[in-house]
């Protein structure tokens, strides 16, 4: 009983904070807004820790909290499923959220929307917790949509910037595509299982898996039910976790303030898709087709999004593309049935990627909101803490032995190597190549920002502005919108961009650096501590289901594992390590030693560069085919259907009919009492005639 109250406390504490900060955002002072929200999240974090201890002791829980609505045989409930998987996510979400809350005090210091911002991020924490703690699909969907909503609000937080508005609209629309698949999947589950409760669905799944098919066209060949459900659910995950081709919104989401880029678009929300697939492991295990689909999508994302990171000049976009690539890694791990590895990577990634984002944010503060890495350089002298922590983050990201990222990423690569599912071969190539690419762009950014020549504070950064405008102005909106974006960016640039000539960057206040240090610690050690229990122990037993007969990846992986220390020392003999080292070395050579080489490559490989510059033309394609097509269709429907048929005949026609009828009814309501009485008599008469003659 006590524990159940604690479960309830975890999501409710941030909600209360969000409500106080949000409802009274115009009234309460700033210190109160951040105090209540931080207190709320801190309470949630603490409670999650207690629950973690409790779950470690073997006390899992699955039960309803509140019955919302009974509709026939369906019960719509709010319920919690607390097991190892949930509790891992709860710890990650609350601790990263807590760090981000503290960090925000420094980052948003001068922003007029200070209270609103705190309210949003606390609300996000609540929604995310509802998502991970749910024990049924309905609540999952609620959390899913709620985090989407908050993400939408936060991307457009600076709502006076047209680029922010376009970005949040884009995120909203792309996520609708994913959610469409997701809700279809949930609908299929409800239709075939008759319940939305996880436990009941999982229990019934094997029996339905074998012989149920869905006929797509008439009576012909069908698709296995499980495959259909899993792929539809995964389409939802593709939207939320930004997998190709639904990834286009994530880079643009960097329009939002940096703290939320760290919290939502790196550490937590975008991993909701990964979490969901891991949670649904009993379903995914039943369909090899769906798993192969997952592998292919994941490996494409892992490699090709990494390439894009190489040519970005906006510090946040580099990190954003690396997030996309890492999400691809996690997806690949899911596809090869190494769910626990995916979750493990999710956790380590949450820490080091939040660290990298917050570090980038710290640099941005130091640079007075100039985000172009070509204007930086040599910052390590001025911002030592930021420098060290960013270095730690980058090392973790590229998988340096003993750092957290090494353990998770290496396990993914090994498990892909061991898988025999269709698509695994391609995936192995992708993740291997990805290692090199990751190392290259991470250290490109690191060197350009912290080392080398000091390029900031130069008056003549007009060129940089133009470049910045180009990155910001998206290809997916109309020429008119484009012009507006340029314009806004220009005014924005005039307001506060970069350092004045002669001005030096400075280290950020302690509220910013403290979270960096706090996140740097797990970024280093969590992998070493976590790998043995999480991957090879019984940690996820009961929470994640793997069909070891069909997909023996984890078992084989366990054979190769001889302890965390041995794994790290052994790494030196593997190709992975050398690929990463090569990436670092090459970036050092290119950007520190011979900056002319990248320029030369850029001019030689024009078409390739243009392809990358335009992000493989995904945005263009969407703009022309989907947006253009939709506009064309819309115009057609508007002119022909809406204006002609609906407005002209149905609406105006029925309005006319209703008006006429209403006028007649008014005429009856003459005010004469004998008319009224007579109407009543007629009523009795009609009833009498109808029934008496029948009887």
């Amino acid at each position, binding site marked *: 009983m006590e524990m159940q109250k604690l479960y309830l406390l975890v999501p409710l504490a941030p909600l209360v904070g969000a409500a106080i900060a949000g409802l009274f955002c115009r009234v309460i002072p700033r210190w109160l807004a951040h105090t209540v929200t931080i207190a709320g999240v801190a309470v949630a974090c603490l409670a999650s820790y207690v629950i973690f201890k409790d779950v470690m002791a073997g006390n899992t829980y699955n039960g309803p909290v509140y019955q919302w609505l*009974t509709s026939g045989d369906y019960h719509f409930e709010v319920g919690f499923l607390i097991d190892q998987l949930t509790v891992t996510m709860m710890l990650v979400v609350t601790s990263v959220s807590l760090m981000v809350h503290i960090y925000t005090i420094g980052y948003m210091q001068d922003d007029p929307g200070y209270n609103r911002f705190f309210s949003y991020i606390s609300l996000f924490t609540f929604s995310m917790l509802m998502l991970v703690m749910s024990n049924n699909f309905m609540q999952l969907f609620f959390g899913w949509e709620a985090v989407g909503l908050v993400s939408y609000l936060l991307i457009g937080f600076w709502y006076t910037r047209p680029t922010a508005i376009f970005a949040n609209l884009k995120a909203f629309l792309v996520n609708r595509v994913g959610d469409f698949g997701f809700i279809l999947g949930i609908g299929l589950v409800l239709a075939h299982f008759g319940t939305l409760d996880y436990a009941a669905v999982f229990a019934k799944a094997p029996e339905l898996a074998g012989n149920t098919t869905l006929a797509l066209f008439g009576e012909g060949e069908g698709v296995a039910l499980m495959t259909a459900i899993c792929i539809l659910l995964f389409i939802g995950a593709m939207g939320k976790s930004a997998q190709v081709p639904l990834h286009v919104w994530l880079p643009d989401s960097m329009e939002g303030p940096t703290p939320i880029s760290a919290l939502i678009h790196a550490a937590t929300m975008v991993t909701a898709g990964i979490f969901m697939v891991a949670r649904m492991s009993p379903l995914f295990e039943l369909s090899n087709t769906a798993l192969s689909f997952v592998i292919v999508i994941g490996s494409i994302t892992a490699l090709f999004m990494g390439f894009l990171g190489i040519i970005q000049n906006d510090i946040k976009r580099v990190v954003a593309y690396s997030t996309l690539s890492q999400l691809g890694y996690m997806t690949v791990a899911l596809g090869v049935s190494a769910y626990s590895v995916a979750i493990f990577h999710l956790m380590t990634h949450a820490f080091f990627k939040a660290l990298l984002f917050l570090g980038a944010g710290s640099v941005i503060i130091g640079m007075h909101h100039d985000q172009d890495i070509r204007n930086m350089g040599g910052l390590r002298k001025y911002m030592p803490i930021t420098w060290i922590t960013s270095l730690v983050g980058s090392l973790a990201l590229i998988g340096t032995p003993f750092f957290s990222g090494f353990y998770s990423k290496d396990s993914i690569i090994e498990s892909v190597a061991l898988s025999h599912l269709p698509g695994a071969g391609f995936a192995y190539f992708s993740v291997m190549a990805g290692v090199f690419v990751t190392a290259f762009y991470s250290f490109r950014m690191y060197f350009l920002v912290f080392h080398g020549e000091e390029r900031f504070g130069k008056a003549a950064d007009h060129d940089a502005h133009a470049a910045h405008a180009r990155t910001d102005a998206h290809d997916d909106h109309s020429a008119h919108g484009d012009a507006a974006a340029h314009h806004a960016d220009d005014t924005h640039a005039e307001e506060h961009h970069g350092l004045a000539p002669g001005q030096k960057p400075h280290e950020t206040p302690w509220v910013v650096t403290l979270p960096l240090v706090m996140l740097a610690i797990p970024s280093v050690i969590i992998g070493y501590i976590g790998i043995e229990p999480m991957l090879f122990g019984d940690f996820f037993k009961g929470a994640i289901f793997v069909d070891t007969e069909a997909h023996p990846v984890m078992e084989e992986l366990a054979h190769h594992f001889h302890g965390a220390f041995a794994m790290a020392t052994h790494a030196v003999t593997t190709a992975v390590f050398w690929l990463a080292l090569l990436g670092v070395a090459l970036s050092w050579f290119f950007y520190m030693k011979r900056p002319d080489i990248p320029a030369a490559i850029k001019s030689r490989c024009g078409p390739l560069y243009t392809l990358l510059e335009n992000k493989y033309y995904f945005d263009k394609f969407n703009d022309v085919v989907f947006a253009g097509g939709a506009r064309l269709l819309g115009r057609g429907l508007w002119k022909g259907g809406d204006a002609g048929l609906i407005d002209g005949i149905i609406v105006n026609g029925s309005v006319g009919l209703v008006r006429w*009828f209403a006028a007649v009814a008014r005429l*009856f309501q003459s005010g004469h009492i004998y008319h*009224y009485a007579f109407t*009543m008599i007629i*009523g*009795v008469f009609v*009833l009498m005639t109808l029934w008496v003659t*029948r*009887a």
Partner: protein
Amino acid sequence: MTLAEMQFQTPELRLASAEIFMLVMACLILMLDLFVKDRKRTVTFVATQLTLVGAAVVTFATTSGDIGYTFSNMYVGDLLGDVLKLLLYLTVIVVLFYSRGYILERPQMARGEYYALTLFATLGMMVMISANHFLTVYLGLELLSLSLYAMVAMNRDSVPATEAAMKYFVLGALASGLLLYGMSMIYGATGTLEITAVAERLYMGQVDRGILVFGLVFLVSGIAFKLGVVPFHMWIPDVYHGAPTAVTLFIATAPKLAAFAIVVRMLVNGLIVMAPDWQMMLILLSVLSMAIGNIAAIAQTNLKRMLAYSAISHMGFMLLGMVTGVANGDARFALNAYSSSMFYVVTYVLTSAGTFGMILLLARGGLESDELEDLKGLNKRSPWFAAMMMMMMFSMAGIPFFVGFFAKFSVLQAVVAAGYLWLALVAVFFSLIGCFYYLRVVKIMYFDQPTNSLPIIAPLDMKILMSANGLAVALLGIFPQALMSICAFALLRSL
């Protein structure tokens, strides 16, 4: 059996203690008022409210959950009755609070008799709710009606009010006649007027169905008048419009609960065997009501009149739940269907109280402010109350996650479960038409320029109550289950 042999049992008064308490207090308040010198009648007002609270305490204390009969089986005490009575007291308390400011500005209404009549009307409704005899149904109804006629006419110098009272009285008398005639036919067919006994005799068979159906037509007509469904609805717009708004508020809320109760008592408890017949009749009335109510409401420019037509359509919708209890001789869904109706009527009363309360809130200085025009730009004058009104309108329109949505949803579910898909479609269609005029109110409040920029002044108690009312509409939309369970449980223990 001769008279001398007749066994008489002393009635068990405990069951009817709430009614007795109410009657005694009403008489006492009538006398107490003679000694009140205060023009505002604060003492009378407080005493009335305390009486209602006291009645609630008595009802609550005597609730047993079992079905008990007394007064020679003319009175039934059961959970359904107790729940409805508690809701009734609550409604009347709220109504009196809302009306307080309004009647103080009209010296002819601000008299002790107003409160006494309110209590007598409440007593009448309590009698209806607990009736187990056609005669008591009728007497309760008359007690209620007579009090209402007088209350409508109370503002003597207002011509519309007097006219409305006259119409209400004459048409009400006609309806009473129909009801009585129907009852006499049922007596003729079954030889008893006791509701449970009628049900028993019908079960045995051996009754003249022809005569029974004939009586049923009149009975349904009489009930239909009380509910205000087409074609017995003609009084509703005129009376709602003409009556002082405080009285309209009263008529539009509490009697709906009592009307629901007598439908359950007479048709379900007494004449369930005749369900196929009365269900068809009610379907006819219900469809007509939804059609005429929703469509005619569009043409109205007066808010009270618009709400009157909306009341007609809502009562039509509520009846849908009553018509789907027995389908093809199968009463499996009866509980679901009737409890959905009960939920509908309770939430309608809640929402209706809020909307008419808002008209009272806007009316100031002895003037009505019941035209749609008067709502123009309400958002600029008071964003909070505009938001409350908006929630009320959304709920009435049945927009999800307000309580009205769940009410409609559960009724429709019962309709579909009983196999009347076409009926559900018709209901949804007319509800969609109905959305138009509710949303028009919202549009007027939010997008039109105010013609009157005076801020809204209201006593604190009214503000709090109005806010609570609005929030209840929203909260019950999010947490409808508790109320739904109460309705289902009360019916389960009483049918």
